């Protein structure tokens, strides 16, 4: 029955893909629960936490800041050009601030930090796995979950709101700089419109998104690094998978939170 085979093949492939995805989601969820349980109980490692906070928060500032600046400016330009078609150029400050704070600030900061941090976490943990450092740590009376994974996940969840706050401010300032410098907006009027249209709900949702993105990007990095196998090739695979998973999770959770909050 070759005809049936050709018909079934894509279905079989689709089914296998769906099952594979479900298995990954399930394993990630179990990993997340284990990580949270370990993070919530002592021993804690404050020095490791501070180290991760510096690595994730402080050293991500330049890339997050630049991304927000350029995006905010480009956004203002596009809204101005688009708005001209129906004489709505004056919406630039309002639309810019809402777009930045609600969506672009958290999403772009999340993606940039995921590119930097998830990959680094996956590569470091995968190398430790390959070189038996994770096994060695267990024999040295220390739980790698608590020593390596918990500080990364806590630090990332804490530092992303800070980074997103910075991204929001710089993004709005980018729009402001372009609008006042190139498009002839009045500086004081621009800022007062921005303030008028920005609501508490926007800021809260922005920070909630940030914390969730911070959690999932560290989770993706730790999960793929911790579970890696197969030498140098395995380390490479873990790094790629971590970034792809982090990106997908960030965009997925962004959609979910947006629908829940701005219903």
């Amino acid at each position: 029955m070759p005809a049936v085979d050709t018909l079934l093949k894509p279905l079989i492939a689709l089914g296998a893909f769906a099952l594979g995805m479900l298995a990954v989601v399930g394993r990630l969820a179990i990993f997340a629960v284990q990580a949270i349980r370990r993070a919530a109980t002592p021993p804690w490692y404050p020095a490791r936490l501070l180290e991760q906070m510096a690595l994730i928060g402080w050293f991500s500032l330049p890339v997050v800041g630049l991304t927000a600046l350029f995006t905010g400016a480009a956004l203002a330009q596009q809204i101005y050009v688009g708005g001209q078609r129906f004489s709505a150029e004056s919406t630039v400050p309002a639309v810019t601030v809402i777009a930045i704070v609600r969506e672009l600030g958290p999403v772009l900061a999340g993606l940039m930090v995921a590119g930097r941090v998830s990959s680094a976490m996956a590569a470091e943990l995968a190398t430790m796995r390959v070189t038996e450092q994770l096994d060695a740590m267990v024999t040295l009376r220390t739980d790698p979950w608590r020593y390596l994974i918990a500080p990364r996940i806590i630090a990332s969840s804490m530092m992303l709101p800070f980074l997103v706050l910075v991204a929001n401010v710089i993004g709005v300032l980018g729009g402001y700089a372009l609008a006042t410098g190139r498009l002839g907006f009045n500086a004081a009027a621009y800022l007062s419109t921005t303030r008028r249209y920005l609501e508490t709900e926007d800021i809260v949702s922005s920070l909630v998104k940030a914390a969730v993105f911070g959690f999932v990007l560290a989770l993706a990095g730790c999960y793929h690094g911790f579970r890696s196998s197969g030498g140098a090739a395995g380390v490479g695979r873990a790094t790629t998978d971590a970034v792809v998973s982090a990106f997908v999770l960030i965009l997925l959770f962004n959609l979910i939170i947006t629908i829940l909050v701005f219903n």
Partner: protein
Amino acid sequence: MADRIAVSGLTKAFGPKHVLEGVDLRVAPGESLVIIGGSGSGKSVLLKIILGLIKPDAGSILLDGQELVGLKGRAQEAARARFGMLFQGGALFDSLPVWRNITFALTKGKLGEGKAMHALAVRVLAQVGLEARVADLKPAELSGGMQKRVALARAIAAKPEILFFDEPTTGLDPIRADTINALIREQVTALGATAITITHDMASARKIADRVAMLQDGKIIWEGPVSALDSSGNPYVDQFVHGRAEGPVATAITG
């Protein structure tokens, strides 16, 4: 004397690959057992199962009569605290200086007690024949042989009762290998530790061992005192000890 470690009926398969197929092994307190066997015969897996790093499919591991298989939480931590292990590649933490590596088990990864720990690390380094200045280097700045000795220092720093050595002399020149052998022997003879060493370096096995066991096709096929190594009467052991390409082991591999 009661066994310190008694392994019985231990099996482990990774997918279709049966690595261990019913391993039985006993080690007395203060005894040095050397396990020999070809590459990929499951020697490392055996040690990792005893340490609880890998779950066995079936079998029992008794530590002073207490079952280790299935042990969890604090009980498992307490049992593990009695072991120290030297990993094949050293497995030093490359983000930490040598002295933090050596004292890792004592501080459980915490900072603090810096001065005392540094001094202790320098003492243990001297034991493995390394200078004090090594303490402040990072593992990546050391040669392979030095890394191995630092890893040995880390394994013995917390004075565990039971020591596992995975290929302690692989990759070392014969002179350095011999100092490592002497160090391992000293841990057992002078400090009364119980040791299991994996090796395929026969010179090392003769130096370290009280007793030798050979792991082949997932089972212990021979064990006896080190003095019986040359008169084992077992063709597998004979072939391995003399490093001959022809013999039952080669047949087993190609067949």
